[in-house]
C-alpha cells in the first residue's frame, strides 16, 4: 500500500506529498504523522503540498486536524507551496484553515518555524528569569 514518507530533520518533520491524496492515504498520513511527532518529540511539522493539484473538503479537514493534533503535542504546523487553484478551492469550500501556518516555499516555511520556535523558547527563558527573580 502507498505510504507518504515522513522525514526527520533536526527538530522538524518534513512531509512532501507528491501524489494526489485519496481519503485512505490521508487518514494514514494523519495517524503516522501524529505517531511520529510523539516519538521524535518534534517541534514543527512542514507539509509541502506544492505537487497537490486537487483538494476536497475532506483533505482540507485532514490538514486542519493534523495542525490541531500537532498543536496539542506542542508542534507547529506549516503548510507550504499551496497552488493558487487549491487555495481558491479551499476558500470556496469555506475552509480558511485557521490555526495552520502557511508559507510560500520550503525555505520560507523553515524560517517561519525557526522563528516561532525561537519565540517560544525566548518566552520560556523570560519566564525562567522572572521566576528566578521572584525566587531571589
Amino acid at each position, binding site marked *: 500500500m502507498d505510504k507518504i514518507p515522513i522525514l526527520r530533520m533536526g527538530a522538524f518533520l518534513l512531509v512532501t506529498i507528491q501524489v494526489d491524496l485519496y481519503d485512505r492515504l490521508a487518514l494514514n498520513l494523519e495517524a503516522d504523522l501524529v505517531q511520529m511527532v510523539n516519538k521524535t518529540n518534534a517541534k514543527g511539522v512542514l507539509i509541502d503540498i506544492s505537487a497537490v493539484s486537487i483538494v476536497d473538503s475532506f483533505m482540507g479537514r485532514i490538514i486542519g486536524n493534523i495542525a490541531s493534533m500537532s498543536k496539542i503535542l506542542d508542534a507547529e504546523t506549516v*503548510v*507550504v*507551496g*499551496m*497552488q*493558487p487553484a*487549491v*487555495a*481558491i478551492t*479551499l*476558500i*470556496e469550500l469555506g475552509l*480558511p*484553515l485557521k490555526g495552520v501556518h*502557511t*508559507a*510560500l*516555499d520550503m525555505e*520560507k*516555511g523553515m524560517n517561519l518555524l525557526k522563528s516561532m520556535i525561537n519565540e517560544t523558547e525566548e518566552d520560556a527563558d523570560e519566564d525562567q528569569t522572572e521566576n528566578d527573580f521572584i525566587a531571589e
Partner: protein
Amino acid sequence: MKNQLTDEGLREDLISNDELRSQSEELITALVSNLSTENFTNLDSDEWSPVIEILGGIAITRARQGFSPRETGNFVFTLKEAILDVLQQEITNDPMALFTESQKINRIMDSLSVVTFETFIKGREEVILRQTDEITEISTPVIRVWDGILALPIIGTLDSARTQIVMENLLQEIVETGSSIAILDISGVPAVDSLVAQHLIKTVSATRLMGAECIISGIRPEIAQTVVHLGIDLSNIITKATLASALAYSFKVMRLEVKKINTVTKF
C-alpha cells in the same frame, strides 16, 4: 420568376454609396442564381445557404460599423419593396397571380430579414463580449512595488466574476515572484456592500493560505462607515487608510527601512 428578379440591381441601390451597391449586387446575384420554384418557400434548403451566408456577412459588418438596427433592417425591406414593384409591373392582367406571387415574396423576404436581424444582434453581442473581456483584462494589473511586495489597485465595482479574476491573477503572481506581501488597494472601488466585502475577505484568506500576507488599503471614510454599519467584521484583516501606510507597514514587516540621506551640498 428569374426574369422578374434579374433587373433588381438598379432599384435596390436607391440609397447610393459604392459599397452598398456592391453588397446589394452580390446579394441579388446569389438570390437569383439559387432560386428554383420547388424550394422557393423553404428557407432551410441548401440552395438558400449562400444567400443567408451573404446576408449574415453584411449584417455582421454593419453591426461592427455601428449601424442602427433600423438601417440594417431597411436594407432587406427596400429589396422587398423593389421586388414587389417589379412584380406589379410584370403581372398587370392577372390580379390573382400577382397576389399569390407577392405573398410568396413577402414570406421569403420576411424570413430573410429575420435572419439578418439575428446575425446583426449576434454580431453586436460579440462586440460587447469582447469589450467586457478587454475591460476585465485591463482593470486588474498586479504591480510589483518592491522586491517581495505586490500591489493590486482595484478600480470599479467588484462582482463575483471579477473577484475570481483578481484572485487568480494575484495568486499566480505571488507564486511567480515569491512575494510575501500583497497590498489590495480599493480606493477605486465606488461602494462596498456585504457581497464585495465577502469577496475581499475571500481574496485575503486565499492569499493567507498561499503563505503570503494581504493588506487592504485605500479605505475611504464613507467605506469605513458602510462597512461598520453593515456589521462586516474586518478585524482579522490588516487594513490601512492609504497605499503609503500599507507600504510603510510592509517595510516594517520585511525589516526594511527608508531613510533620508544627509546630502552634503558639494557640487
